């Protein structure tokens, strides 16, 4: 059943402008969000989405223009006031307190009290369960938040917010850390809340899910309002992408015709206790091999075990016929393996340090002269990578924390290119990156393969796996269950094996 839309828009932006030290971040943004919708906010990184959200939630003040909530002019000056207007936000990094229980988190600062003033735990636990049930989730109110998975924590966060009776909920990249199964669960929750009259503002870079969950959308580009789409599900995907990037994107996935050569890298019977079981595969020169599977299927763990970041209990690794004895990332890098981690901020970058510093951080050997670091060499080398990878920075001394996600990711790429790897393992290389930068990253991956390297791409996005890989290795519960060639693979087929399908598909 289609949700009922009332006449007055729940949120209306009128002529919102905002500039940071003279640079326009938003100019004259006007659009409406109808009650009960899931309204997607689309645009590349830097398009102005988060600035707009910050204005709505009172973190920032608009230079001009006004926000109407329920048809009335609303001046929101901080998050707390936003809550009074019924606006709730689920942050990308969740705001729960890890060592407290689920119920304690849900009722933080609003704990039900006994007459003597002490906290009424019984009621608190019971109410937590009830709030969970209203969203179709089973909560154990007593378990500590730190013992929950990322997905479970997010659900707790949503329940917490839901218990405060929000009218408008902002979800900012809620699925970036979730597996497909968990996304289904999240969407179920969203739909239940929607059925109870909650309006959503949904920010995501994943085209597929936007069309699945969204009713309508607004596209921003370079701080400008581009278009609103009333019926998202029936709008052509290419049309939406054109709105977002401002030019028809012929192909997100650049074409590739790479000669696949001989076997250059081989893994035999790799195991990590409880996580990875007897994984074997071969990687050819010029090949892009995809690792597909649900989150927790052992893909990242396999990569980490190869890279020496996770201790393997058995297994052999061969590079160009030679067995490698890798005990640490240091050994792996020396043997020519590069590993781009899935969380660039936590595991890849030195955020406070400069573009240059980060780029050479795994290849200091290269910039040495007579045992000492040669800064001139460093500048030359880094400038070269900045140019070839089209990293957009005002200067190579800029700290990477100031770069957009896409440019940060390119810096990590530069780091591994500089390290002179022969086998590249990319774990979720395009997570949290806008469409334009994604396409550029695919081009880099193609180029690496063309140059005779071997590339492994771990990805939870099936279209991406199908778009960039020659072969797809499918993981299920720590085992590599099946390898499919590009021609025989399809999204359904990959999902079938990733979910544990035993028989031949179809």
């Amino acid at each position, binding site marked *: 059943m289609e949700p009922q839309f009332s006449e007055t828009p729940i949120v209306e932006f009128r002529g919102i402008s905002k500039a940071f030290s003279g640079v326009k971040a938003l100019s004259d943004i006007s659009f409406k969000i109808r009650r009960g919708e899931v309204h997607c906010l689309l645009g590349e990184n830097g398009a102005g989405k988060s600035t707009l959200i910050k204005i709505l939630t009172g973190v920032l003040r608009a230079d001009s223009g006004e926000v109407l909530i329920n048809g009335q002019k609303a001046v929101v000056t901080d998050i707390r006031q936003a809550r009074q207007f019924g606006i709730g936000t689920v942050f990308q990094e969740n705001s729960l307190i890890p060592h407290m229980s689920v119920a304690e988190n849900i009722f933080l600062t609003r704990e039900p009290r006994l007459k003597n003033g002490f906290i009424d735990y019984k009621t608190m636990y019971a109410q937590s369960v009830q709030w969970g049930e209203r969203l179709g989730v089973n909560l154990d109110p007593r378990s500590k938040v730190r013992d929950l998975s990322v997905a479970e924590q997010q659900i707790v966060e949503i329940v917490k917010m839901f218990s405060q009776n929000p009218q408008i909920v902002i979800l900012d990249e809620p699925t970036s850390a979730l597996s497909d199964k968990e996304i289904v669960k999240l969407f179920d929750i969203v739909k239940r809340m929607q059925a109870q009259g909650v309006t959503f503002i949904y920010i995501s870079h994943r085209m597929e899910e936007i069309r699945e969950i969204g009713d309508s959308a607004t596209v921003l580009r370079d701080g400008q309002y581009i278009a609103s789409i009333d019926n998202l599900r029936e709008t052509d995907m290419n049309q939406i992408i054109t709105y977002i990037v401002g030019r028809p994107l012929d192909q997100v996935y650049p074409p590739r015709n790479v000669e696949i050569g001989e076997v250059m890298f081989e893994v035999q019977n790799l195991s990590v206790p409880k996580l990875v079981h007897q994984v074997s595969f071969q990687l050819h020169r010029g090949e892009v091999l995809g690792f597909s599977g649900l989150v927790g299927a052992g893909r990242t763990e396999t990569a980490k075990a190869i890279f020496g970041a996770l201790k393997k209990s058995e297994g052999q690794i061969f590079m160009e016929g030679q067995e490698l004895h890798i005990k640490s990332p*240091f050994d792996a890098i020396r043997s020519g393996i590069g590993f781009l981690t899935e969380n660039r901020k936590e595991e890849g970058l030195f955020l406070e340090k400069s573009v240059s510093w980060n780029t050479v951080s795994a290849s*200091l050997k290269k910039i040495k002269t007579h045992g000492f*670091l040669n800064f001139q060499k460093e500048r030359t080398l880094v400038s070269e990578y900045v140019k070839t990878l089209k990293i957009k920075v005002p200067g190579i001394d800029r700290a990477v924390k100031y770069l957009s996600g896409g440019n940060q990711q390119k810096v990590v790429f530069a780091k591994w290119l500089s390290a002179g790897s022969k086998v590249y393992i990319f774990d979720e290389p395009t997570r949290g990156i806008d469409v334009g930068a994604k396409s550029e990253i695919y081009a880099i991956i193609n180029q690496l393969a063309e140059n005779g390297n071997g590339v492994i791409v771990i990805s939870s996005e099936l279209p991406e796996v199908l778009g960039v890989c020659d072969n797809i290795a499918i993981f299920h519960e720590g085992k590599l269950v099946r390898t499919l060639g590009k021609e025989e693979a399809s999204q359904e087929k990959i999902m079938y094996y990733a979910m544990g399908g035993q028989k031949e598909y179809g």
Partner: protein
Amino acid sequence: MAEQLKREPGLFKRLSKVPGVSALLPLLVLVIILSLTTKTFLTPDNLMNVLRQAAIYAIMATGMTFVLLTGGVDLSQGSVLALCSVTCCMALNATGNMWIAILVAVATGAVIGFINGTAVAYIKLPPFIMTLGSLYMVRGFTLYITKSTQVSFRGQDAFRFIGQGSLLGIPFPVYVFILVGILAMVFLTYTATGRNIFAVGSNRVSAQLSGVKVNKITVLVYTLSASCVGVAAVVYLARLTAAQPTAGESYEMEAIAAAVVGGTSQAGGEGGVLGSLIGAVIIAVIRNGLVLLGVGSYFTKIVVGLIIVLAVALDVTRRRFAVNK
């Protein structure tokens, strides 16, 4: 838009970006104020006296900087100073050879530092706890081997010169701290290992996954810290001609203060030796200045404490406002 890399900024701007240089400004202000308010501050004798007093703290602060840069802390420094000066003095009396004595002092420090670092790196003890434990253990051990009495030496003019002599009108300890400082700066800035020390403090996980041998770096910085203390102990002993088993108490706090005032972040990854040296001088200038102004020693502590808080507050504020433009 054409991709254009910004040209390197001018010398002044580049200099201002060198960690520690920003600490020069408060130093300059202090010097100007004290020059105007006292007659004696800006005399060569007094200035040399200030530097001589700063030397031991500056050398220790250099060692402390290595540890702070990795996000750790070395609380055992003060105790190690006592132990090193005692072993140094014993070696001097036993062999009569000052070079052996110096070696013994530095080696004593290195061994304690190695133990600290190994425990932090491999047993994963929090640095605060491990070095706090060392603080007590090393102090106890020093009292034990000296039976709580001071150890002294006679003669040894050449050795004494290290602490008491002057060269070209400048006290010899000042040469020592400048030499240690320069070596440390070159090491941190121009070697891969030096840069990896920053990497560990900036993001330990990223460092590990970039091929940095994080555990080895950790052992190294604690070893360097205590080895610097060994050098400081030599200067200390040469100056006083006697090693007190109770010497150096709370000197580690002075070293931390100097480093922090000099802009080294106690969270790791940011800062440098130059700032710590300047920080040590700033603290020595304040002490000296307050004495010259005839202010009591209680007040000195209050002012030093205030300076620490202000310096960091300034730094934190500056960082907060240096947002993305």
